[in-house]
């Protein structure tokens, strides 16, 4: 019997939410453990085995010189590399540093800033190495994670639709929070995958899955304004989980030039 494929989970700059999503797959974990050999997952096990790895799940963004080197080493060791979560796919919340002076932050936050060795930017994995698949979200969606792993195991393409959150909202039969309640919502420009989690609780989408392909953000901004958001609030809406996603950067920069 051939040995099972190996699975490695790697952490870069991030919280632990996306790794926890894997551990949250409680009903599936034993089955998964029977299908793959988990060879690197420090969050779950102290057993660390050398590569190469059939699948690497990479979470977190690149924010240090050491991480810049480490991600290349992991890529070389990995047959399939999947970037998981907003940090790994767009730079995460910590990419807010990209728009300001990180040295100032460092001096403000740390008593001894000289011990902090960090880059001026937080960048996604795909800015450094080729990535096979990206799972969006803060955190990722467990069903999408299982979909990618199941697809890999059987050798098919995973189903990761590049469409708006609205399509998931409507398929669930939910009532639009923006149209019926006037609640600001980023769903019309946000990449699907969460299953319309926030609208299901009558909250507007926070955009944690980042922009879908070719979103029409200016058209949404008019509606956010109609929902009562002021310019600061609109900027904040695009400067959260995926602040450094190019479509969101472009919008904030455009609006700044308009306001001046």
């Amino acid at each position, binding site marked *: 019997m051939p040995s099972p494929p190996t699975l490695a989970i790697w952490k870069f700059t991030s919280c632990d939410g996306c790794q926890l999503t894997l551990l949250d797959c409680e009903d*599936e974990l034993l*089955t*998964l453990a*029977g*299908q793959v050999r988990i060879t690197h997952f420090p969050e779950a096990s102290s057993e660390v085995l050398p590569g190469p790895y059939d699948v690497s799940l990479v979470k977190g963004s690149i924010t240090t010189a050491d991480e810049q080197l480490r991600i290349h080493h992991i890529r070389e060791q990995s047959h399939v590399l999947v970037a998981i979560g907003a940090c790994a796919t767009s730079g995460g919340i910590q990419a807010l540093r990209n728009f300001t002076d990180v040295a100032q932050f460092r001096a403000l936050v740390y008593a001894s800033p000289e011990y902090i060795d960090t880059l001026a930017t937080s960048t996604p994995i795909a800015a450094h190495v080729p990535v096979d698949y990206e799972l969006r979200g803060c955190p990722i969606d467990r069903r999408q994670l*299982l*979909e990618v*792993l*199941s*697809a890999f*195991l*059987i050798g*098919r393409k995973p*189903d990761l*639709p*590049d*469409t*708006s959150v*609205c*399509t998931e909202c*409507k*398929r*669930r*039969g*939910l*009532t*639009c929070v*923006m*149209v*019926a*309640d006037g609640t600001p*919502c980023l*769903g*019309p*420009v946000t990449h699907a995958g969460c299953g319309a989690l926030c609208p299901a609780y*009558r909250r507007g989408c926070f955009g944690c899955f980042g922009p*879908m*392909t*070719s*979103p*029409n953000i*200016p*058209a*949404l901004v*008019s*509606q956010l304004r*109609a929902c009562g958001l002021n310019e600061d609030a609109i900027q904040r809406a695009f400067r959260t989980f995926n602040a450094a996603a190019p479509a969101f950067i472009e919008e904030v920069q455009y609006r700044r030039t308009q306001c001046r």
Partner: protein
Amino acid sequence: MNTPAAVVIDRPGLDGLIRGLMADGYQVIGPTVRDSAIVLAELDSPDQLPAGWGVDASPGHYRLRPREDGAVFAHSAGPQSWKQFLHPARQRLWSSRPDRTYTAESGDALRYAFIGVRGCDLAAIGILDTVLAGGAHSDSAYARRRRATFVLAVNCTEPGGVCFCASTHTGPAVTAGYDLALTERLDAGEHGFLVEVGTEEGARILAQVPQRRATAGDVEEAQAEVARAAGRMGRQMPEVDLRDLLHQSRESPLWEDVASRCLSCANCTMVCPTCFCTTTEDVTDLTGEHAERWQRWASCFEIDFSYLHGGSVRPSVASRYRQWISHKLSTWHDQFGSSGCVGCGRCIAWCPAGIDITAEVARLAEDAGRGQQDVSAQPAG
């Protein structure tokens, strides 16, 4: 069958009809208030009908409004349509077992009773019948559900701000395709319903509740009320040959203009009661021993929708909006023998950007009219 004379029932009579359908084993689906809207959902009791609720709708805007009376059908289209029951957003087509044998989905054995189907929506169900069950390759699950569905229709007496069924000739009166058709009457504090019978099944259900024979006056007043509704539509589709207009408008500058406002979020197609497109997804479990194929709603506004090897055929939003409206209003005639639009106004109200299909068509018609004048102004030869 001989068409029985119309009768009048009161609100307890309506409740009796619904209870009768429930007792008969129907899964009763009707309007009810949930999450700031009048949605369509399974009813456990006739008390869940949206009594005393109306709706204010305009482009990109929908609000519930309390009514002084106890009207239960005085509201225009909500965020959902009957398509979500007849042609569900997600359904399994087949599954396979480890020994590689397949089981095609035999479909649910549900018998739906739809309560409060308006003219626009009854026309939409008729269109879905043609599209999904009328061709050489009938959708067997749809056809089965449809055959088993009881339709309690309502003549619309309360059109909303985005309604335009009078101009698409699909309402406000229901003309065919129902088991029972009601007209809600609220005169002098008396809440009643004129009931017309469409089928024997309708007559059988109706026989279970107290009723009185309708007078000629009852029928005339109800008809007058529906006729007045036709004059109170919030919107109107331009009365031109839309099939031709869209055909001629392929290169219109309007498409780029709409694209600047369109979110390509696909809400319009998802709420449209006749948009029927689907895609399929193949799912396997972690062991790979169990595989399933699922069908789910898709939309021509999704970039994946027209993806062929190497890229999307319609990468621009302008091309996607043009595709949607051209199919809906023009090429639908070539394909299915009618327009695909029934004038329910859902795509207008539930577009977060408030894009109004009647206004866009009016602009196309205006541009086309101007174009023709320009041409006629040119000297011959």
